[in-house]
């Protein structure tokens, strides 16, 4: 789960990381009020779950409260990578001497949290890693012991020659690791970590991605979710217990299992079509899930055909058939549907479908080809 910069900053502050003050505004007037309170040049930053906010014009300096209001009115409502900005963070502008990068990820290869730090901060860390790998220090952390003080100091010294600054950075890294672990994060990042002209070390930005798997046992983290910042169809799918990702094509796909769902999308492409979505109805699917899946898919105006691909293991194919019947009786389909199902209770499922005027296919390739033909109008 993505959270906003201002939320990550609150978590970081609660662990003691030095961060300049800031406030969130949802209207230009609120932004102006915040600028008056800080009585200095401020930065207005779009709060949106997308990278490259600066390049997209979502981060701007404002010298006066009036200018803050004007800039906030431009950023609020702006689209960044397809997402609408509903909130801005207003924070006093800091004077910057140097910029560094500090981040923690869960590394799949070493199966540990790994720190990545670089004195070349403020820019894309992947770019630094590709072009100047010697400017990055990687440090795996043993999760049993946590980040040890000497390790933190090693990283501090990699960033700063000045021992006072190195110690200050080391302390921030300990605090960042604590925040990372306590929040069940899969990523925690400060970019940039800056030094000011007076020598202080301060975090100017904050980014955190939380592990979705933590949210069930950590309701206080689940509260950080901002549904206005997400695609409405994806929110609806999550509420129904489905995994849905919208894509640009016109063949709507309903599949059980993530691997099969991806393979189905790939096969749509193989036969010359474009998948409209990834949708996994999961293992023990009940008819209600199928109803929700159809609602979500048919609300996409680009969808020209619907493809069900169900391999019944735990999933009972008769449950899926019942779901299709229920959903289409409630609101008749406007686009053609192709149903492939095989496995558990297949005979029952086929009978249910036939009784209601649907036909079912057993082969995945033939079903995908048919759905693609219907979507592209190649043959009807």
């Amino acid at each position: 789960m993505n959270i906003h910069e201002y939320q990550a900053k609150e978590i970081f502050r609660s662990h003691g990381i030095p961060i300049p003050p800031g406030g969130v505004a949802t209207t230009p007037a609120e932004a102006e009020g915040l600028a008056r309170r800080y009585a200095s040049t401020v930065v207005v930053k779009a709060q949106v779950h997308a990278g490259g906010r600066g390049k997209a014009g979502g981060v701007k300096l404002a010298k006066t409260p009036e200018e803050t209001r004007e800039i906030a009115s431009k950023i609020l409502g702006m689209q960044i990578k397809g997402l609408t900005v509903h909130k801005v963070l207003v924070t006093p502008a800091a004077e910057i001497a140097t910029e560094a990068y500090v981040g923690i990820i869960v590394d799949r290869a070493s199966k540990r949290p790994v720190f990545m730090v670089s004195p070349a901060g403020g820019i894309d860390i992947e770019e630094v890693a590709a072009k100047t790998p010697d400017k990055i220090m990687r440090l795996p952390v043993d999760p049993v012991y946590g980040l040890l003080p000497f390790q933190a100091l090693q990283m501090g010294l990699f960033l700063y020659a000045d021992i006072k600054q190195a110690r200050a950075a080391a302390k921030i890294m300990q605090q960042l690791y604590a925040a990372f672990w306590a929040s069940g994060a899969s990523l925690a990042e400060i970019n940039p970590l800056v030094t000011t002209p007076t020598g202080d070390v301060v975090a100017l930005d904050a980014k955190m991605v939380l592990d979705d798997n933590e949210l069930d046992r950590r309701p206080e983290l689940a509260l950080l979710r901002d549904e206005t910042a997400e695609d409405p169809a994806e929110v609806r799918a999550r509420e129904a217990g489905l995994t849905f990702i919208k894509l640009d094509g016109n063949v709507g796909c309903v599949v059980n299992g993530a691997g099969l769902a991806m393979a189905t999308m790939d096969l749509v492409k193989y036969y010359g079509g474009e998948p409209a979505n990834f949708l996994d109805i999961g293992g023990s699917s009940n008819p209600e899930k199928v109803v929700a899946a159809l609602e979500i898919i048919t609300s996409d105006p680009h969808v020209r055909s619907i493809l069900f691909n169900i391999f019944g293991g735990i999933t009972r194919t008769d449950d899926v058939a019942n779901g299709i019947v229920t959903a289409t009786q409630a609101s008749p389909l406007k686009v053609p549907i192709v149903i492939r199902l095989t496995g558990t209770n297949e005979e029952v499922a086929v009978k249910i479908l036939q009784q209601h005027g649907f036909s079912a296919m057993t082969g995945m390739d033939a079903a995908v080809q048919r759905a693609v033909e219907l979507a592209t109008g190649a043959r009807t």
Partner: protein
Amino acid sequence: MSIFIDNATRLIVQGITGRDGSFHAKQMIEYGTKVVAGVTPGKGGQRFENTVPIFNTVADAVRETKANTTVIYVPPPFAADAMMEAADAGLALIVCITEGVPVLDMTRVYPYVQARGARLIGPNCPGLISPGASKVGIIPGRICAPGPIGLVSRSGTLTYEVVYHLTRAGLGQTTCVGIGGDPINGTNFIDCLDAFERDAATKAVVMIGEIGGTDEQEAARFVKEKMKKPVVGFIAGQTAPPGRRMGHAGAIISGSAGTAAEKIAAFEDAGMGVAKRPIEVVDLLKKRVR
């Protein structure tokens, strides 16, 4: 012959009284798996289906039944503890079906299990089956048949799809292993490839990967350098957008790393047969197995 499980497998089911645990315990017993014990804290002394004894702890179950393998169906917040309890009780093979285990939990479970010499399969996996001998997990028994093909996969239903085609084409299996779709899991592709290479009954191997991480790329290097048996591969997620988690927690392209194209290139470089569609696995295998 087979890998990891066979007729000597004596299985514990952790979470045997839960919805999923009880359903699949019955299926495994029907398949012929020796389910010797169940574990549900607080229900020790009872019996599952009037036959299988239930214990409060894994240690009790191991002591009383000489079990050597466990399968875990407990809910995600308790799955890490269940895996560590099993390793501590001395079980050689731990199979965790549970989906949704927090990844930071796994950073502690993995070294704990390693240090105790146990093999972990999963979490978030369908388990494994040695057709005709033993089934541990949720892979439907009736789509499998005994034969010479070893299969390893990160997926569940996609595995069933491929196994279904194999069986229909007369290509039975020694063992099918689902290693799971999480970013941190126990047994990886190389562990399974190595076991299949050593298994006399396995004549060829199918490897089903997906986007995210570098496991497939490393496995391809292993195939190239260490394996004599033919390997056929398939990668799911060629049309997956970067930065999005495609259902499985581990199925995500981070930046430009972990794409299907990169994995397919690694498979091709290793001289493997690469299927463009799941069904092509059959023909590619037939060309390589007499």
